[in-house]
């Protein structure tokens, strides 16, 4: 059975899910949701995701939303197929969880706000709040300094193997470097840069980039 992923291939949170499915070689169908037309706020979609956000998935009887919960599920369901994205021991799994939470709570909001103010609002013909964007940029510098330290001690965020914690950062960093043109935040940090080069060259991510037309 093919997993149905509701959303668009350009949405960062949808990309988080698709990257995981590609790593695990799980077949999927993207069911397009027209975000610009506000399709995600219509009653038919709210049945799938009551907060009116993408992605949502349908896999047989299972319906799920929240991209990080979805990737945890598939990483566990297919633990024996493809790369182990969860960590092997209880301690490794705890570190994967820790850095996934860091991405969700310390990294994501800053990147999202930056991209919203610098890219999305202007695209819609509205002015972005440059002061807010600048403040986010400064906070992001501090956060990435922590990553720089961490990655001087281990090849990936949770240890010596690529995991969901690293995967979860891929869409946000891509937006930061490309549309928001803040690649310097990554390239000026030796270890963060090396890590980004590594994770963004994974075949699954490159396949997704083709699918998304980036």
């Amino acid at each position, binding site marked *: 059975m093919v997993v149905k992923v509701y959303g668009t291939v350009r949405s960062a949170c949808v990309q988080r899910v698709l990257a995981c499915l590609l790593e695990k070689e799980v077949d999927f169908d993207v069911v397009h949701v027209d975000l610009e037309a506000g399709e995600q706020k219509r009653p038919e979609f709210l049945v799938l995701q*009551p*907060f009116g956000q993408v992605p949502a998935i349908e896999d047989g009887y*299972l319906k*799920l*939303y*929240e991209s*990080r*919960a*979805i990737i*945890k*599920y598939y990483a*566990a*369901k297919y633990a024996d197929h493809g790369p182990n994205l969860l960590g092997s021991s*209880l*301690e490794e*799994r*705890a*570190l994967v*969880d*820790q850095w*996934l*939470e*860091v991405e*969700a*709570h*310390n990294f994501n909001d800053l990147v999202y706000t930056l991209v919203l103010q610098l890219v999305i609002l202007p695209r819609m013909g509205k002015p972005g709040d440059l002061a807010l964007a600048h403040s986010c940029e400064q906070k992001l510098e501090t*956060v990435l300094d*922590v990553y720089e*330290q*961490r990655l001087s001690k281990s090849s990936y965020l949770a240890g010596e193997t690529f995991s969901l914690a690293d995967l979860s950062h891929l869409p946000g960093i891509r937006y930061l470097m490309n549309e928001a043109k803040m690649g310097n935040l990554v390239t000026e940090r030796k270890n963060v840069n090396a890590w980004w080069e590594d994770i963004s060259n994974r075949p699954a991510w490159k396949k997704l980039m083709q699918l998304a037309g980036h």
Partner: protein
Amino acid sequence: MAGRKVYGTLNSPATLKVLACLFEHDLDVELVPVNLDAGEHKKKPFVSMNPFGQVPVYEDGGIKQFESRAIIRSMSFEYGKKGEELIFWDDRKQAVVANWIDVEGHQFEPPALKLINEMVIKPKNGLAPDQGVVAEAEAELGNVLDVYEARLAKSKYLGSDRYTIADMLHLPNLQSLVGTTAKKLIESRPHVKAWCSQILARPAWGKVLEMKRKAQA
């Protein structure tokens, strides 16, 4: 014994969530206070434990972990009491719990914290609440609780028909909210109201509240 420690404070919702989880699993712990007012969490030695300078940090058997939801997840898998687990070993069932854990973090907590900041923390510091922010946060939280109302009409608890860590994560902020006029958001939604009363009555949460009372005495 096992030397479990939580570095944090009884005013921090994230610290209280971890304590609730420890008590649900009947685990002993030592609370090592971190003085947030003095900025202790932004300096060494604390930042060598959590480089993001946030409480809590949890130590068990010499291993340190930060991010409360990660701590709670791994603790629940490691110490799940047979038959009384707060997680599921079945991947599909746990996926739904994980979904609602993220809903708490992404949808519920942000407007809840905004409201608590205006209605509880600012008054404590002698500042007046900003009514514009209050109205906006109440509207946002109201929308979220509409979703919860629909969910809880079909399911006894958020993640399943039994209490799980997805429900537990709501405890500190719900406790704060029911002490303010924002409690109307909860009381006007019958399923949310019933769920809220149920989970706030958990003995493990009572133990956390007792700890807070003793510290203030």
